[in-house]
């Protein structure tokens, strides 16, 4: 059910030993591999989108060479029956994804017995990652429930994606006003959670101008960052130069954003072959290093 892609290269041995060829690349150094770490299925609550029918989204991803897309569900923002959301997501990725879509289940630690949702994501749906939406679910990253979730996910060898925002706060629907999530508590939290692996999505609106916090997060060695909201001309290159060692991954945030917006960033920044490979696939693989599925 999970993607075929990658776990490649020299890191292959370290990455995902148990799951083998899953979610990542295939052949070492195969630059044709292209991982989009940030796509969504189902319906955005306030608008129909071009790609909210899975076949259209798949066609767009394929047309741009994406070989693996990590897909969450917009349904998880407001639905309380998260278990059903994850069943539908896993089914859609398996039935329609045709090897391209990797389901990333949702967990809401504000709901009772979220631990069972996590177990099902891992053991039943065989997911390697889960995705959180703290602002829609009403908690901060300083919340003890979030720390417990990270701990549980780490114990299972799962990657945790956290969407810091879904929409520009200035344009939110008047009845759906949610503030951007601050990643600051992670600086103190992550050192106490060995094995935790985190990827921040839609994260650069605030982080771009908080270089000190960004550097502290990078120093934890366990956080990666998707480029979907990285703005400023040639922002990818500027970020790599200003924050050495920052693990940037490609994330389009399609279909809420037009896929081309992130895709063109790869052209706008002058990048070396290694930088481009890291962005397209290498850092996504590295984020999965150590993740495992039940045998």
């Amino acid at each position, binding site marked *: 059910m999970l993607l075929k892609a990658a776990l490649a290269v020299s890191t292959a041995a370290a990455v995902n030993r148990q799951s083998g060829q899953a979610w990542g690349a295939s052949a070492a150094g195969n630059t044709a591999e292209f991982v989009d770490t940030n796509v969504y299925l189902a319906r955005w609550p306030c608008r129909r989108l071009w790609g909210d029918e899975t076949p259209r989204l798949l066609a767009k991803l394929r047309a741009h060479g994406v070989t693996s897309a990590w897909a969450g569900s917009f349904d998880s923002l407001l639905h309380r029956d998260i278990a059903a959301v994850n069943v539908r997501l896993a089914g859609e990725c398996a039935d329609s994804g045709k090897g391209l879509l990797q389901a990333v289940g949702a967990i809401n630690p504000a709901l009772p017995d979220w631990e069972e949702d996590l177990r099902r994501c891992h053991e039943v749906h065989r997911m390697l990652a889960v995705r959180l939406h703290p602002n829609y679910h009403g908690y901060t990253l300083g919340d003890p429930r979030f720390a417990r979730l990270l701990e549980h996910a780490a114990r299972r060898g799962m990657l945790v994606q956290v969407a810091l925002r879904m929409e520009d706060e200035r344009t939110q629907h008047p009845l759906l006003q949610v503030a951007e999530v601050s990643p600051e508590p992670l600086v103190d939290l992550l050192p106490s959670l060995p094995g935790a692996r985190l990827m921040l999505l839609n994260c650069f609106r605030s982080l771009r101008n908080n270089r000190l916090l960004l550097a502290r997060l990078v120093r934890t060695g366990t956080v990666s960052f998707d480029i979907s909201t990285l703005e400023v001309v040639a922002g990818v290159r500027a970020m790599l130069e200003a924050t050495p060692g920052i693990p940037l991954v490609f994330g389009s945030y399609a279909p809420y954003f037009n*896929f081309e917006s992130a895709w063109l960033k790869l052209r*706008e920044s002058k990048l070396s072959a290694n930088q481009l490979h890291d962005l397209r696939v290498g850092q996504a693989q590295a984020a999965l290093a150590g993740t495992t599925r039940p045998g």
Partner: protein
Amino acid sequence: MKIWDLHCHLNAPGTTISARMDALMRHADRMGIERICLFMGTPWSHHPTPAILERTNDEILEVLKTWGDRAFGFVYLNPKYQRESLDELERCVANGPMVGVKLWQGWKCSKPEILPIVERAIELQAVFFHHAWLKNREENPEASTPMELAALSARYPQFPMICGHSGGEWESGFRAIRAQPQIHAGLGGFDPTAGVVEMAVRELGPARVIFGSDAWGRSFSSQLGKVLGADVSDHIKQGILRDNLRRLLLPICTAKGMAI
């Protein structure tokens, strides 16, 4: 596709005006952008005094000496300082190489101080670009909304205006300007949300939609993605990416003897 960018600023990194412009155009070249409209250098000010207006407009004038074949200069004005703004309009457009007017957040467009500026811009056939954002929270009481720009347009129904950012919250923004056929939607300076171009084309007609980036702060790529990824025909995309802007620039450029 031929691409002209309605909305660029001179705020790239660089220690000199020339270095900032070189950086901007180097990346415009990477993205296939032929020509840009340029306004506002440094300092960056929401509430510019006359001295700041003059200084930032001087930067654009300086750039145009070298880049006049690829950059269209717009004069930055603040109706709060009406007399000085009219003087800047004369200096930079009537008697200078600039071809457009940029108004930002210094004075609401619903206030009467703007009217003589609009009327002089009409005489000069200048392209008229006004920032507009519909926000769900108050940040700057002098920032204008698309509704206020629509009311201004109604006073001058033959004069083309451009609603910057499509109002930000564009689903309401397009509705606000829809009934004023001379208001165009500028696509720059907000998230690359899917569907924006499709709705603009549907509600305003393809001729009223204009690509802009809001570079340097926004990337060319994210903003181009709005158009290149839209579910509209290539013919419509070409109109948005260049032809609609060119049509607005043509009268003043022709009057000034500028080939475009």
